[in-house]
């Protein structure tokens, strides 16, 4: 349909309003992170006057931010490798074989995506206490696997579904067994799918707050979300550090998100989301 001039104008007005609304909090955080304290705690409205890197310097040199980043990186990486590795064979079975219990398993993974983390929180806390895993990264890896594995299965099933079956037939003719077919043919063909799934599993672990808040007790063991939350103190809120930290945490996530978002959307609508 050809658009009339008035219609085109209306389109732009709507989109501009919503674009501003979408970008504004991010923009404001970015701007604030470059402000000196005197301007942050001011009642005047100024976009930016004397930009400074002081907040970033303080964040990286004082306190535990770097340690938290290392912890987050470690937990997210281990979770991702663990979840993708386990999920791959399972997703392949669900994608390729028609066996009794297939749809029940699929349903189970969908439901596993649905229940709120607080349900598992309490029993996991008891188990981790007994196993002396509280305040270690392993408590997080295991608890993150509870949602990362079902998520990866659903995403990977979608990717495996798109690989033509004839390729596997060819492998079988060449004498490969089912496991050989999987390792030699399906996995090499799914590298992009595996990468995208891994990245999203990584991001989910990188952003997780509730389990980390509950299972970590000492400041050196904190991941970034828990560490950032400790800054929010009703009496003394270091907004310079909070905004600088927000910027540093968000940049890598955002770059990746825009590269990979296309794949997430199809995966999510077939799979499910974790709040």
């Amino acid at each position, binding site marked *: 349909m050809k*658009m009339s001039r008035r219609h*085109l104008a209306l389109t*732009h007005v*709507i*989109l501009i309003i*919503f674009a501003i609304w*979408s*970008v504004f*909090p*991010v923009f*404001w*955080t970015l701007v*604030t992170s470059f402000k000196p304290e005197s301007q942050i705690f*001011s*009642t005047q*409205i100024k976009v930016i006057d004397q930009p400074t890197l002081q907040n970033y310097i303080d964040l990286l040199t004082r306190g535990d931010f770097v340690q938290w980043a290392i912890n987050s990186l470690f937990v997210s990486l281990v979770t991702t490798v663990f979840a993708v590795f386990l999920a791959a*064979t*399972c997703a392949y*079975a*669900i994608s390729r*074989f*028609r*066996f009794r219990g*297939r749809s029940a398993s699929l349903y189970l993974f969908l439901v*596993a995506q*649905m*229940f*709120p983390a*607080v*349900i598992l*929180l*309490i*029993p*996991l*806390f*008891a*188990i981790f206490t007994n196993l002396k895993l509280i305040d270690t990264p392993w408590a997080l890896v295991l*608890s993150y696997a*509870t949602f990362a*594995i079902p998520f990866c299965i659903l995403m990977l099933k979608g990717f495996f579904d798109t690989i033509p079956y004839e390729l596997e037939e060819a492998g079988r003719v060449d004498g490969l067994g*089912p496991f050989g077919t999987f390792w030699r043919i399906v996995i090499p063909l799914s590298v992009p799918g595996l990468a995208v799934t891994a990245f999203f599993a990584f991001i989910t672990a*990188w952003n997780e*707050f509730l389990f980390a808040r509950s299972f970590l007790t000492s400041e050196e063991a904190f991941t970034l*979300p828990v560490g*950032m*939350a400790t800054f*929010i103190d009703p009496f003394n*809120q270091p907004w310079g550090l909070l*905004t600088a930290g*927000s910027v540093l945490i*968000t940049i890598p*996530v*955002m770059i990746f*998100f825009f590269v990979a*978002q296309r794949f997430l*959307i199809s995966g*999510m*609508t077939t799979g*499910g989301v974790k*709040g």
Partner: protein
Amino acid sequence: MGSRGWVAWAFMAPVLLVMALIVFYPMAIGVFQTFTNIDNLNQGTRFRPPSWEFVGLQNYIDILTGKDTKFYPVLAWTVVWTVVNVFFHYTLGLLLALTLNQRFRGRTSYRMLLLLPWAVPAYITAIAWLFIFNGEYGLLNNVLGAFGMPRVAWLSTFPWYYIMPIIVNVWLGIPFMMVALLGGLQSIPGDLYEAAQMDGASRTQSFWNITLPQLRSVSSTVILLGCIWTFNIFVVIYFITGGGPGGKTDILVTYTYNGFTLGQYAIAATYGVIIFSLLLVFSAVYRRVARES
């Protein structure tokens, strides 16, 4: 390939084993705890044997009959929270999807900008808004101040402490709806609109008679996901109001978490099971209704 069931199960085995250990076993413990009165004082320590007891269905009875006076108020606010949020996510997401689903210059750039909230970690979003809402030097109050209007303590004044977390969560949830609905719109065959146009249908008529019905399956999926997601979202309430003032803005998941931090394990576990049951029943009913209509 039914005859090769064992191969399938061999592929499934590692996951099922791990899921059994980290999901099903803890779930079983969680359900077991709901029939006890276990808490942080009677659970037993190195120095003291456990002294909790079985209480049967008492926890469920206390909660569901309203003896635990918090349950129904918290549930009511959780439902309002979910409905209001998903309503705005869906309507605004649809408006933006319809707007983007046209041919004009700058479309891709708008799409990128509108996706931005999805790319930001939810807790970082909450921190960003918290700063804007700050009573003393937050931007919102500074703007009001510049116009000579009184400052508002947004997070402790009725009804703002209900509205502010909704604003944040609406901001968070629109991009997902927008993108999913845009995908739905793009899969509607163009000739449907051409035929309608030839029959003299207006834009509005096409919207009600073609667009909405064609979007039904996408819409029902994203609304269901949106409801579950909003019902369970923890960080927005936790960071923005902390459930305050006086627990008024706690939703079920944050309230359950508070029970856990206070060491009321049995009660919190019972809340957990109730939340899960509510969601299961809701999605089962929802799916049936969506299929029948």
